[in-house]
């Protein structure tokens, strides 16, 4: 029985409107840069943006879940590197078949996520602190395990194809979109399904909306919270595999800092840090806004340092606009 009138106000404040506005911002940016520079509006550059978004996009998917529960995961960047290193160990050092290596990498990330989840849900350590600890731990582990040197995948050239090859290009000639991009979109579709249609997704929102009420309703909060952080680690693991494939190597010194781009993407995409709401679509749009911005500014010869200043400003602006939208 329908009874709540949908006023203009509720529509304006709704989640759908937020995503429309984010998408609108992306379009405006793209049009702006296209007009500003001919180099921006080429197919190759467009593909370049897609590729640049791939790793961060996958990383941001897992972070979306965590932030919706009202938590935070600072470790995703270094867990990603850790997973890349482990993949390198499995494939190059231990000569295991590539699929096993990939699974191992993802498993490594998931394990880190599991440990995060247990620290947070059982030991009641605040997410900021627990994941900060994991950040340092995995950073160190990456260096220890790799012996401070990059691990190359030269013995297994197929590995690189996972990210940089183009299945799409073989099917549709002229459409040389790297596989990494497809993997990102595929992962996003799965993440969206989990968030919107499964019990894990439902409890992710419930925890972020009112954890105490969820607990009092008989839901095992500890188990589901752990599951969310495990998922974050899993996506970080996948991102690690992807990054290793892109660079054809596992670089133990990289990674720290990626978590900030991931969190920025989630926040720009409309997920609130206080929890209870958010979407995968928003996160993907957020990730594209960041990479479009970075790409466009670079093409316009804006120095890298200034690109970062702009990104920072955009993050704050995005959240502020969202706060305004909600208040009105």
């Amino acid at each position, binding site marked *: 029985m329908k009874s*709540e009138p949908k006023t203009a106000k509720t529509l304006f404040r709704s989640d759908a409107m937020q995503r429309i506005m984010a998408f609108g911002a992306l379009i405006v940016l793209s049009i702006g840069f296209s007009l500003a520079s001919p180099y921006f509006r080429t197919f190759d550059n467009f593909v370049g943006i897609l590729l640049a978004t791939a790793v961060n996009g996958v990383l941001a998917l897992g972070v979306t879940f965590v932030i919706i529960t009202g938590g935070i995961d600072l470790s995703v960047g270094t867990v990603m590197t850790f997973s890349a290193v482990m993949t390198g160990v499995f494939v190059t050092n231990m000569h295991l078949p590539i699929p096993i290596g990939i699974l191992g990498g993802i498993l490594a990330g998931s394990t880190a996520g599991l440990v995060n989840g247990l620290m947070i849900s059982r030991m009641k350590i605040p997410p900021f602190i627990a994941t900060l600890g994991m950040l340092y731990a995995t950073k160190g582990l990456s260096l220890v395990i790799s012996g401070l040197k990059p691990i190359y995948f030269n013995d297994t050239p197929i590995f690189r194809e996972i990210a940089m090859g183009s299945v799409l290009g073989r099917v549709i000639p002229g459409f040389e979109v790297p596989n990494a991009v497809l993997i990102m979109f595929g992962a996003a579709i799965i993440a969206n399904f989990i968030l919107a249609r499964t019990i894990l997704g439902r409890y992710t929102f419930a925890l972020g909306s*009112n954890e105490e009420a969820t607990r009092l309703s008989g839901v095992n909060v500890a188990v589901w919270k752990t599951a969310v952080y495990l998922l974050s680690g899993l996506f970080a693991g996948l991102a690690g595999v992807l990054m290793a494939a892109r660079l054809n190597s596992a670089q133990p010194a990289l990674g720290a800092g990626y978590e900030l781009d991931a969190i920025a993407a989630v926040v720009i995409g409309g997920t609130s840090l206080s929890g*209870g709401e958010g979407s995968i679509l928003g996160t993907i749009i957020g990730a594209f806004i960041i990479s479009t911005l970075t790409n466009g500014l670079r093409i316009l010869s804006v120095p890298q340092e200034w690109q970062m200043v702009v990104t920072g400003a955009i993050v704050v602006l995005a959240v502020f606009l969202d706060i305004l939208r909600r208040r009105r």
Partner: protein
Amino acid sequence: MTNLSTVSGKPELLLRMEGIYKSFPGVQALSDVKFDLHYGEVHALVGENGAGKSTLMKILGGIYHKDAGRISLEGKEVEITSPAMAQQLGISIIHQELNLMPHLTVAQNIFIGREPRSKPSFIVNDKATNEQAERLFGMLNLKLDPNTKVADLTVAKQQMVEIAKSLSFNAKILVMDEPTAALTDTEIDELFRIIRQLREKGVGIVHISHRLEELKQISDLVTVMRDGKYIDTLKTGEASIDQIISLMVGRTIFEATPELPENPSQEVVLEVRNLNRGRVLKDVSFDLKKGEILGFAGLVGAGRTEVARAIFGADKYDSGEIYIKGQQVHIKSPGDAVTHGIGYLSEDRKRYGLALGMDVKENVAMAAMKKFLSRIGWVDFKKISVRGDDMVKALNIKTPTLEQKTKFLSGGNQQKVVVGKWLTADTDILIFDEPTRGIDVGAKSEIYKLLNDLVHQGKAIIMISSELPEILRMSHRVVVMCEGRVTGILNAGEATQENIMKFATMRSSVIQPSS
């Protein structure tokens, strides 16, 4: 649901609680309390603040464990060890702070933890969830859309969601804690319609409320509790409001003849006119005379602390005027208030009155640091020590040294430190919010003596208190508030426990004192 209420024409006993005892550190919350509930009965539970109503219901709901006593449900004795178990037994409690997830939809809230699944089972079936919710709404004729986010609903509708959720657990007992507090009259009518329908179905309903006229409308029986004890149960139809009130307050007060300080002067030091703040304060007006202790009585939520905070600049208010010694003032912050000579001793002195990690002398100096700065701005610790010493002697504060951290002092002495702070800040108008809360009997009389000394010296005091004996003993006049309004201003002569309680539960109309 078939009508479970009668067997051979008389309502069957659904719930019996007897001999319930419950204590918390320092206070015996319940002593030998009993409570009976029948099928299809609306049973009101009333009592002052601290009477034990919420505690009793929390025991029923598995949130607290009783120390002693028996609970029998449908003739069988039960031990209710957790909220989940209470739910399984068919006991549903709807708290004042609703237990809902605002970002989720109505249907999702109702079925959280028991979502209907699709194939494979990790996929939730929203369609089925909505359908089951609709069926639930149909049972009580609730006008709800299962797909609306709870955050977009009014409080009244949110309550309906909680009621629907209870129904979905086949609740036999529904406890509602102050359900009408946030509702409009139309919404209250709708709520009562739903309650009547539930009654038809044989559900036993416990209705906790202080709105006595409402209880006359909807309840069959009313049980009165006082000071953690069971007092009596009356048939609502046969009882008058006055009767109920006198049961709520009737106690032999050990108050000696009120040793009130000499009569205050007629000089008005503070006047408040038409103070308004949203739904919280409505047209509050009163005045305060020099040398007077003005008691503020009322039930929890009456708005007394809100008045204090508005005067003190801690909260903004929508409209109204404040005059100090005849001059209108615009107080925008506590700092302003202090400059105008107003001090506020908050309810929760540990949270708002003291810096527990700092010592006695630092706390005493805190509201008047300007006085303790040397010419170039350094803090003059020697001056602070001298002042701290003065206060300890003047107020008889029991502390081993001035350097003792205040968290180690007893409640009574902590309170004295806070008084010392406001005296150091040269305040003439002091607002005490629950001055003797958490303080043992011996220390209480010291605080009362302190209050008397202060007004002797010409200060003016507003004393907010939920303890009626305290109000009666100490106040020259009593302002009684109910739901944001001043319902009565009584002289010492007119102020009796019954009178105060009558005004404290009166939801409309204002009566001025006769003089």
